Structures are given as structure tokens and as C-alpha cells.
């Protein structure tokens, strides 16, 4: 930015940078609500459980397509699955680096892919349980439940990681997932 005089410095962008489009946000909270309902509220053998399962499948597939054709921060190319980069990011965190990522940071990216994959496994095995061909096959049901347990572990890490990063960088990530805006200092280190 072309602020030469000291008088103009310290200008802050009150609403930050728009990073998450409404589709990303609706899909995220839609999935979160559905997981909450199917994981703890409704009857696992009921029709509602099944319907919500289909809805989650639809939301995840929608998000995955959006990862190819969506705006830049929503696209997979903004947060490629890269364990090496995740390790490097972890080291940078330990060094005290507070570079802000407009999309997911490399660690968060791995978690996002993990969550989507786990959700897909849960949905597919859930649908298989309802088909004649796999009816009563134990391994399907066991996989469905194991994947759900893994999802719960992942969620603890996911939400814990979000709040840890929020505390570490001062960027209010949860609010960004609601409003779409990340409160980012444009003059600070950005990625």
C-alpha cells in the first residue's frame, strides 16, 4: 500500500480479509450440525439417521467439487495435502512464527482432508448397511463404528487445534468460519 507519511500508518481494516465464501461456511456448519445430530441425538437405526447421513454425503461431495472450481481460498491448490509442509509448519510454530494463512495452514489442511475422508467412510459404510448385499455383514458395521470413533478423536484435535491457533496468532478463526472474514493485519506476514 502506498502510505508514505507516518500520519496514514496504523490504518486498520476493520473487517479484515474475506476468506471463506458462503458455500464453505454453510457446508461446514451443516456438516457439524449433522454429525452432532447423528452422533448423539437421534436413533441410529431410524430413518432420520439415514436421511441425515445422505445429507452429509451430499455436503462433503459438494465441498470436494468446490475444492476444484471454487474461489482461491476454498480450492485444494490453496491447501494441498503435504505432510512435509505440515512438519515444517509445526517447526515454524515452535520457533514462534506467526505467519497468517488466508486459507488453511498445512496442519489444518491435513485435518480437513482427514475429516472429509472419515466422513465419506462413515457415509458409505452406513449406506452399505442398508443394502441387501451387505446386510448383516459385520465388518461393514464395525468399520462404520470405528470410523465414527476416529471422527470423534479427530474432532477433539480439530477444535483444539483451531482454538490453539486462534490463541497463538490472534486470528479469530471460528468467527471467520461464521462471518467469512479473517481479522488479519495486511502488513504482517501473510500466506
Amino acid at each position, binding site marked *: 500500500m502506498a*502510505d508514505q507519511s507516518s500520519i*496514514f500508518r496504523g490504518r*486498520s*481494516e*476493520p473487517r479484515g480479509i474475506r476468506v471463506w465464501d*458462503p*458455500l464453505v461456511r454453510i457446508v461446514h456448519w451443516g456438516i457439524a450440525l449433522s454429525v452432532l445430530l447423528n452422533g448423539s441425538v437421534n436413533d441410529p437405526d431410524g430413518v432420520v439417521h439415514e436421511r441425515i447421513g445422505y445429507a452429509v454425503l*451430499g*455436503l462433503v461431495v459438494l465441498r470436494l467439487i468446490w475444492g476444484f*472450481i471454487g474461489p482461491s481460498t476454498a480450492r485444494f491448490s490453496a491447501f494441498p495435502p503435504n505432510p512435509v509442509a505440515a512438519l515444517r509448519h509445526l517447526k515454524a510454530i515452535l520457533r514462534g512464527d506467526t505467519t497468517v494463512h488466508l486459507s488453511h495452514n498445512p496442519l489444518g489442511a491435513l485435518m480437513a482432508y482427514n475429516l472429509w475422508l472419515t466422513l465419506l467412510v462413515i457415509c458409505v459404510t452406513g449406506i452399505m448397511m442398508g443394502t441387501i448385499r451387505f446386510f448383516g455383514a459385520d465388518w461393514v458395521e464395525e468399520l462404520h463404528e470405528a470410523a465414527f470413533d476416529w471422527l470423534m478423536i479427530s474432532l477433539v484435535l480439530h477444535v483444539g487445534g483451531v482454538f490453539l491457533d486462534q490463541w497463538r496468532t490472534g486470528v479469530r478463526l471460528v468467527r471467520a468460519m461464521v462471518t467469512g472474514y479473517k481479522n488479519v493485519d495486511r502488513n504482517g506476514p501473510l500466506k
Partner: protein
Amino acid sequence: MIGWNTANPRLGEREARRAALMALMIVVQALCAVFFIGDVLLDATEGSADSRWHLAFETVAAIVLCIGTLYFMVELRRLWVRMAQVNAGLRAARGEMFQVIDAFFASWGLTPAERDVALLILKGLDNESIAQIRGTAAGTVRAQSAAIYAKANVDGRAQLLSLFMEELLAGDSGDSDPSEQFKPSVAARSAR
């Protein structure tokens, strides 16, 4: 230091609402598509009482829904990218405005304190408020603004503001403008 916060929160809000509505439509359509496709696949693999025509109809409906959803997704992406561009344009315009103001202040030889006061005057604050913000006496601000008006060669607050308004309105249309008699920039300057 004093900031210049002109971000208008209402700007682009209409587009944001449109984008949200579009995203909602996309989600609803996608969910419908999933249920249709699920129904078609179950009917096709498990065999059902439904007729062939019924199955064909559902298949077509599912395909149309998918295409519609994809179309809306591309539109939403376009809208979102355009919103970002407008934002960038506004920021650039704002940046240029700072440069213009800064250049004026420099050419008048304002001191740093006077620049702060002048900026607050441009923001529309009265002397009391300026004194409060800067933690000085109202008399000091009055003396500073008098110095600013003198250096800028204007009568007061209103004329100071009009200087920058002219700069905005004059734009690039300058000499290629056929309506020569209407050149506020020149007219106002020669009037002082």
C-alpha cells in the same frame, strides 16, 4: 497515529447477501440431487416395483439437478471473484486518495502535528473533538487550524474540504473536456 478509516461497511453487502442466497440454493439443490441419485441407484441395483419410465424420469431429473447445481456453483465463484476485485479497486482508490492528500500537506509545509489536525478536520471533527483525541487544549487546536488554513491559503474548514473535493471531481477529464467553462479546479483556485 491517526488512521483514516473510510471502509464503508454497507459497500458490497448486497452482493454478499446475494452470494449467501446462491450458496444456500446450491446446498439445497445438491441435497435434492443426492436423494434423487440415491433413489435411482437403489432402484436400479436392488430392483423395485417402479416402472422403467419412472426410473428414466428420475435419472433425467437427477442429471438436470446436477447440471443446475454446477451452473450455480460457477456463477457463485464469478460473483465472489468480482466482489474481491471491487474491494481491491476501492482499496487502491483509497490509497491514491491518501497520496493526493499527503502531497497537498507536504506542499503546504505542514508540521507533523498540523498534518494530524488537518486530517481530523477532513474527517469532519470539530475543534473540541480534535483537542480531545490529541490530548491538547482547544486553544492549541484553534491555533493549529489557523496555521493550516493560512498555509493552504483558504478561508476555513469549508474551503479546505472543497480543495479535496475538486481534486476528486476534476479527475482526469482535464483538458480533453469540451465544457471548458466548467472547470471547478481552475475556477476555485483563481478565485482565492
